[in-house]
C-alpha cells in the first residue's frame, strides 16, 4: 500500500483537519482502531484472570478493562498530584485520574494523605479547541463541573506553557503519533516534570507476531477506511490515520527516543500483541 508523503507543515494542518472533522465521533474512531478490537474478547479473558492476581503488575492479564485503565494503574495517581494529560482533549485519561484519586482518598488511609487532596490538579492540554469542548461537555455530563481540580488548556505538545518541574505525571494517550516533532514533545515532557516524575505514553504500535501481523494489516488497510467512510463519511482521514500508525517508530526505537530525552528506567509494555503499547520513563 502506498503511503502518502506529507510535508511537515501540511502534516499539522492535515492532523488538525482530521481531528476537527472527527471530534464528535472520536470515541467511535478510537474504538475501531484499538479498543474495539480489544473489547471483542477482553471480557472473557480479563474477568477470569482478575481474581488470580490481586496485586500490581501481573504475569497474566491486566487488572483493567481497557487500555486507559491500564495506563492509569501504571501511573498510580496519588492525592495532591499535579498531572498533565496532553492531547487528551476528550478527557479519557483525566476523568480516570480524578476517579482514582478520589477513591484512594476515601479508602481508610493511615494519616496525612487526605490533607493533600486539595492540592490535586489535573491539566488537560490539547492543541484542538474542538476536542477540549467535547471534553468539557463530557465533564459536565459526569458532573465534574464542581471539580476545582480539572483545567482545560489549549496548547501545543511541542511548546508547553507550563513551568519547569511543575508536574508529577505526564501522560499522552493516542496523541504522540500526530505530533510533527516527536523529540520536541518528549523534551517538553521532560522539562515540565518534577524530579521523580513519570512520563507515560499510550499509543498504537507495531505488531510483530507472525500471523496476527498479517491479519492486523488487512484489517487496518482494508476494513478501517471503509468503516470510516460509513461512520464519518471520510475515508481519506482514516486512511491517513492508519498510515500514520505504521510510520510511527517501533517500540524499541521509541523507547530509545524517550531515553535520549533524558528519561531513566525507560520501558514498554505491549498490549494485544503490540497493537497498543505503553511506554514509560522516570525523570531523575
Amino acid at each position: 500500500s502506498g503511503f502518502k508523503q506529507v510535508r511537515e507543515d501540511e502534516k499539522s494542518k492535515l492532523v488538525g483537519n482530521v481531528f476537527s472533522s472527527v471530534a464528535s465521533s472520536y470515541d467511535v474512531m478510537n474504538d475501531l482502531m484499538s479498543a474495539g478490537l480489544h473489547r471483542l474478547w477482553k471480557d472473557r479473558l480479563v474477568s477470569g484472570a482478575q481474581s488470580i492476581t490481586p496485586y500490581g503488575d501481573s504475569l497474566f492479564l491486566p487488572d483493567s478493562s481497557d487500555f486507559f485503565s491500564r495506563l492509569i494503574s501504571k501511573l498510580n495517581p496519588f492525592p495532591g498530584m499535579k498531572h498533565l494529560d496532553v492531547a487528551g482533549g476528550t478527557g479519557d485519561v483525566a476523568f480516570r485520574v480524578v476517579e482514582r484519586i478520589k477513591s484512594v482518598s476515601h479508602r481508610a488511609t493511615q494519616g496525612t494523605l487526605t490533607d493533600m487532596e486539595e492540592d490535586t490538579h489535573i491539566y488537560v492540554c490539547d492543541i484542538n479547541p474542538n476536542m477540549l469542548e467535547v471534553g468539557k461537555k463530557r465533564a459536565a455530563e459526569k458532573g465534574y463541573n464542581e471539580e476545582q481540580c480539572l483545567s482545560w488548556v489549549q496548547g501545543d505538545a511541542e511548546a508547553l506553557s507550563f513551568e519547569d518541574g511543575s508536574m508529577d505525571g505526564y501522560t499522552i494517550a493516542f496523541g504522540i503519533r500526530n505530533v510533527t516533532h516527536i523529540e520536541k514533545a518528549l523534551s517538553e515532557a521532560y522539562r515540565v516534570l518534577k524530579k521523580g516524575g513519570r512520563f507515560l505514553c499510550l499509543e498504537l504500535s507495531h505488531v510483530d507476531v507472525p500471523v496476527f501481523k498479517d491479519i492486523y494489516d488487512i484489517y487496518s488497510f482494508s476494513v478501517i477506511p471503509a468503516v470510516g467512510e460509513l461512520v464519518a463519511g471520510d475515508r481519506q482521514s482514516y486512511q491517513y490515520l492508519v498510515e500514520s500508525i505504521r510510520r510511527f517508530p517501533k517500540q524499541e526505537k521509541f523507547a530509545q527516543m524517550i531515553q535520549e530525552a533524558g528519561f531513566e528506567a525507560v520501558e514498554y509494555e505491549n498490549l494485544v500483541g503490540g497493537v497498543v503499547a505503553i511506554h514509560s520513563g522516570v525523570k531523575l
Partner: protein
Amino acid sequence: SLTAPIGWANSVSTQPRHFVEHVVVRRTGPSAMASFLVARRLLCPASARRLLPCTSPPPSAPAALCWLSTDASPSPPLPVPPLEPTVDPPKKDGASFSAGSGAGGAYRTGQGAASGGRRSGGAGYEEEQQKVLRASLLHVPRMGWSESAMIAGARDVAMSPAIVGAFPRKEAALVEFFMDDCLQQLMDRIDAGEGELLKNLMLTERLSRLVRMRLEMQTPYISKWPQALSIQSQPANVSTSLKQRAVLVDEIWHAAGDAGSDIDWYVKRTVLGGIYSASEVYMLTDNSPEFHDTWTFVNRRIKDALDLQKSYKEV
C-alpha cells in the same frame, strides 16, 4: 463488514496468553540486591573460599530441598559492568546525567517480540530508588508497609511521589529492601568485629546469637511485621522472599562456621530456616521485656535441632 475481525478474534482467543499481554521483564531493582550483597562478600579475603550460594549446591542434592538453585525469575548473579555508550545522547539544557549508559543499562527484550526490557535503569536510578525506600522505612511504624509510607518517603527526599508508581511491586519492594538492608547490616557487624566474639562460643550459641542479632533489627517495626509477612507470602512476591531468606540463612551458617560439620548442607539450611521463621512468628506475640521469651525460644529450638542430629548420628 465487521464479521471478519470477529471470526478471527474467536480463533485467537483460544491462545489468550500469547496475544493479549506480555508484561515487562524487570531485571534489576532492590530485590536483586541480595545477589549483589553476596557478590560483595566475595571481596573479603576471609570468605574467599566461598562460592556463590545461589549457584553451587552439592551435586547430589535432591531438587525438592534446594531453595537456592532454582530461580523462578531469572536474575543476573552479578551486576552488569558499565557499558561504553555507543551513541552520544544529545545534550539538552545541560542535562547532567547520562541517559544512555551506566551499570545495568543492558537492554533486554523479553520472550518473543512482545515485551520490552528496561533500559538505562543504571546506577543513578537504583540509588534514587534506594534513597526513597530508606526514607520510607521511617514512616512504616506509623503507616505500615504501604504506598502511603513510600509516598511520604519520596517527599522526604525531595522526589515526586509519582516515582512510587515505577516500583514493580510497591509495598513488596519496600519489604524486600528492608530484608536486604538487614542482611547487609548483619554482614557488616560480623565483619566489623562481632564475628570474633563468636569464636569463643559453642556452635549452638553462635547460631542463637546470630539469629537474635538479625531478629532484633525488626523490633522497631514489630507492630507492622505481620503485614510484612503477609506481603512476602503473596504469590507474586514469595519467590523473592524465599530467596532472601535462603541467603540470610546461608550467611548465618557461614558466620557460625560450618567447617567440618557432618550434617548435610540442605538439612542445615532447612532446619535453620524453619527455626528462624518460627522464631520470627513467635516474636509477633511476645510481650516480654526486650523479647526475652523469644531469645529463650530460639536457644531451645537450636539446641533441640542440633542435639537431635547428634543422637541420630549415634544411632
